[in-house]
């Protein structure tokens, strides 16, 4: 018994995986972001990573909502669906359940993903479908020309908050963790290598991968993350977290993070008081630690944590769907529609 879709899946599997280069993932559409927009880099890094994944491009689908970032699918030479505002994660969920054979990606913004799309976002995290979510966080609504977003810092003056915003911002990493996500990471548009690495790890993770990407909107929120991306300040403002490694940062690699009680604090490695062995060592399998690191995010006395917060295994939703189907078929045999229609209490009229 095989459906029309099975035929497509089978025939597509006959083709080997072509040796791609980044350019193979560029579509024929003109890229239409503002000159200088951070989205360009994220697009480039994504296209650069794709060949490494050894997945045929016709098996890839990029799904987005609405926003500048959500134009992304148009530029990928894969399948794509530019949906409606906030619903990319829900659309992707249906696609992935129907077609577990596909590599499904969601591209979203801070407004699309966690303002209007917040509900689908948190539910995707807990369900753990094998979908990769790239959230371009520019702390602003770009496409609608500059209102504050749920990640904008308090006091932000925008078109809709001329007196400054009074909403406490989400920390998307904590939100994902609080929603029981299994893979949570953060990267930066202006650190191409780091971003490539994270996108690759996200793709490899089996389960929902959530990647928050700090992205510069040079038109409506220029420099929002320069502290974390620009040469002069970056080293002292960011701590790159890596599995199994102590948390060290600073231009001279002379600072570290240790726990004081449950609270992370910055210590100097120079004055002899503390050494590397006193420092917090990252373990991306530890859910509790992931919360501790995430909670560093908006604390101005701490460097901004960047990297993979958590990467754990948990049953994947669509796998369980398939298992239940297999189980039911084993128990009851392949469903027979004619038999079903004629089942139950029936009677015959002559």
């Amino acid at each position, binding site marked *: 018994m095989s459906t029309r*879709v099975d035929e497509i899946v089978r025939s597509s599997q006959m083709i080997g995986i072509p040796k791609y280069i980044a350019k193979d993932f560029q579509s024929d559409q003109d890229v239409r972001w503002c000159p200088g927009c951070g989205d360009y880099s994220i697009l480039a890094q994504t296209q650069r990573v794709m060949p490494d994944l050894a997945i045929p491009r016709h098996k890839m689908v990029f799904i987005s909502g609405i926003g500048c970032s959500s134009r992304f*699918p148009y530029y990928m030479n894969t399948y794509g669906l530019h949906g409606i505002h906030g*619903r990319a994660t829900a659309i992707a969920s249906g696609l992935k359940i129907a*077609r577990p054979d596909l590599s499904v990606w969601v591209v979203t913004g801070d407004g699309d993903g966690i303002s209007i799309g917040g509900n689908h976002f948190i539910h995707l995290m807990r369900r753990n479908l094998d979908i990769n979510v790239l959230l371009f966080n520019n702390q602003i609504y770009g496409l609608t020309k500059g209102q504050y977003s749920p990640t904008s810092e308090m006091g932000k003056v925008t078109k809709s908050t001329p007196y400054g915003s009074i909403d406490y911002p989400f920390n998307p990493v904590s939100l994902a963790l609080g929603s029981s996500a299994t893979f949570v990471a953060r990267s930066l548009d202006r650190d191409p290598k780091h971003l490539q690495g994270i996108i690759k790890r996200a793709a490899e993770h089996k389960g929902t991968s959530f990647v928050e990407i700090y992205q510069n909107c040079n038109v409506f929120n220029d420099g929002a993350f320069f502290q974390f991306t620009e040469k002069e300040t970056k080293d002292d403002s960011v701590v790159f977290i890596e599995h199994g490694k102590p948390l060290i940062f600073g231009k001279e690699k002379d600072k570290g993070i240790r726990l004081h009680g449950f609270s992370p604090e910055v210590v100097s490695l120079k004055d002899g008081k503390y050494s590397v062995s006193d420092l917090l060592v990252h373990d991306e399998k530890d859910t509790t630690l992931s919360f501790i690191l995430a909670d560093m995010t908006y604390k101005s006395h701490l460097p901004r944590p960047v990297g993979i917060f958590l990467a754990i295994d948990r049953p994947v939703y669509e796998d369980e769907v398939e298992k239940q*189907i297999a189980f039911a078929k084993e128990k009851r045999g392949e*469903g027979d529609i004619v038999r079903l229609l004629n089942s139950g209490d029936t009677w*015959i009229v002559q």
Partner: protein
Amino acid sequence: MAEKKVRSLDEVTIRFAGDSGDGMQLTGTQFTNTTAILGNDLSTLPDYPAEIRAPAGTLFGVSGFQIHFGSTKIHTPGDQCDVLVAMNPAALKVNLVSLVDGGTIIANTDGFTDKNLKLAGYAQNPLKDGSLDKYQVHAVDISKLTALALQDLNISSKLIDRSKNFFALGMMYWIYNRPLEPTIEWIKSKFTQKPEILEANLRVLKAGWNFGETTEIFSVRYEVGPAKLAPGRYRNITGNQAIAWGLMAAAKKANLDLFLGSYPITPASEILHELSLYKSFSVKTFQAEDEIAGISSAIGASFGGALAATTTSGPGLALKTEAMGLAVILELPLIICNVQRGGPSTGLPTKTEQSDLLQALYGRNGEAPVPVIAAATPSDCFDATFEAARIAVKYMTPVMMLSDGYLGNGSEPWLIPDFNALPEIPAKFVTNPEGFLPYSRDEETLSRPWAIPGTPGLQHRIGGLEKEHLTGNVSYDPENHDKMVRLRAEKIERIANDIPLAQVEGDTEGELLVISWGGTYGAIRTAVNRQRQKGSSVSHLHLRYLNPFPRNLGEILYRFRNIMVPEINLGQLIRILRSKYLVPAIGFDRVRGLPFKSVEIEKEIEDILKGKK
């Protein structure tokens, strides 16, 4: 034992009524199944409160189940009932209005305690104060008799009390000459794990039957012969089950897997429940976090090549409208089943209504036309859903299938269709990259190709921004937009060429044409038939396709002097008919959360024919 008289009847309507916890729905369903097996035609109407389990004895906690069966064609669950089984005073009070004058009451006297009488607002016991004199009252100690039947079993009094509905059922089987076997079989299969309950229920059922047989209370038994139904194998089916099966049959015909993205809501939840049973059919059901995710996931699945559906009721449909617009512009197949309930807002969630038609037709931003099909009866839900799927796939479009609470919960005998004889559903995926254009169109249907991810060489992007004709690229070009808006509309219009012509029941011209749509079919057909038998010049036209209309509809309308459109809303279909055909149709609206009674339609027909309206 005196010999009992047997009297023959053409049709009977019985209503079982009791507390929500009294198992009246179960009793009704069992009576229905047995009656169906006997070959009667029938129609049922469950009627339960919005509260899950209201406190015992209260008026608002009454749960009822009405069955109308006969040896003739039965179109409705009956305007009024001939027999009312009342397990307590509240059940009597609430349902007495629907009992015909001179009808029969079978009352569980044990339920008529002082406390229950007070809860029901009776100052005196109506079984004793003569207030029911115009009815035939049979007062039976059902609870006591049940307890007696079980006295040697070591079971709790709670359990004993819960069995008493089987006593009532047994009694009714005896009176209406129905076999116990189907229910015995059912009890046996249902309670295999619980032998005590099994034993108790069997005993009580038989005790009820024996009570009828042995006591002097019931002097007459009734016989209702089998109806002349088309030959074939039948089963009883509710509208919601029929929708589920219709979707499954369509998926099979299309050779696609079925995907349902849905969020529970009364009275549509049973479709989700039913479909989640069929994993061995590769049916995938996704209980989403809300209605928006329900439809959005279905859109994703449709993009992936599933036969995708979403099911809901009014408030849920309101939430789905933005995504429906997306499905329209993406031109992907999708079936949206809306089981209407009383509105506006939360309204009357467990009651029926026809007030989502305008929402179905127009409730989206921009010009976003979708075909709309409405089912006429519970079993027609199967065909209407199947047809919705056929159109969705053939025309690459979301299709709205309308049902209502009355159809969804109601049931009737269903001539099980020959699967092979069902229409083909021509699902087809393009695979050839040569000349592939995602928004090129089939010349006849105007539908675009279905190109699913995974197909080598067909990578393309679709989305909610206006698309360029043929390429599907984003286009802001004014003339292209005008063209695409018209193409999408024209595609839906052309479906009129692919659906049956409208058919008039009765003369094809005359004084009055009564037009129905959806679940009011039965009541209106009954009313028109009766009026025709009385010699009135009245015909009936039932509209299954609400968008587009059958091509011959205008023609038909112009041949009648008067047109009447009864609806359970404030006049929705009538607006469309008047607008499109400029006919001075007259509405007839009752918005009570209940199906029409055929007598009220009859009365209106008479008034119109007499020129009173």
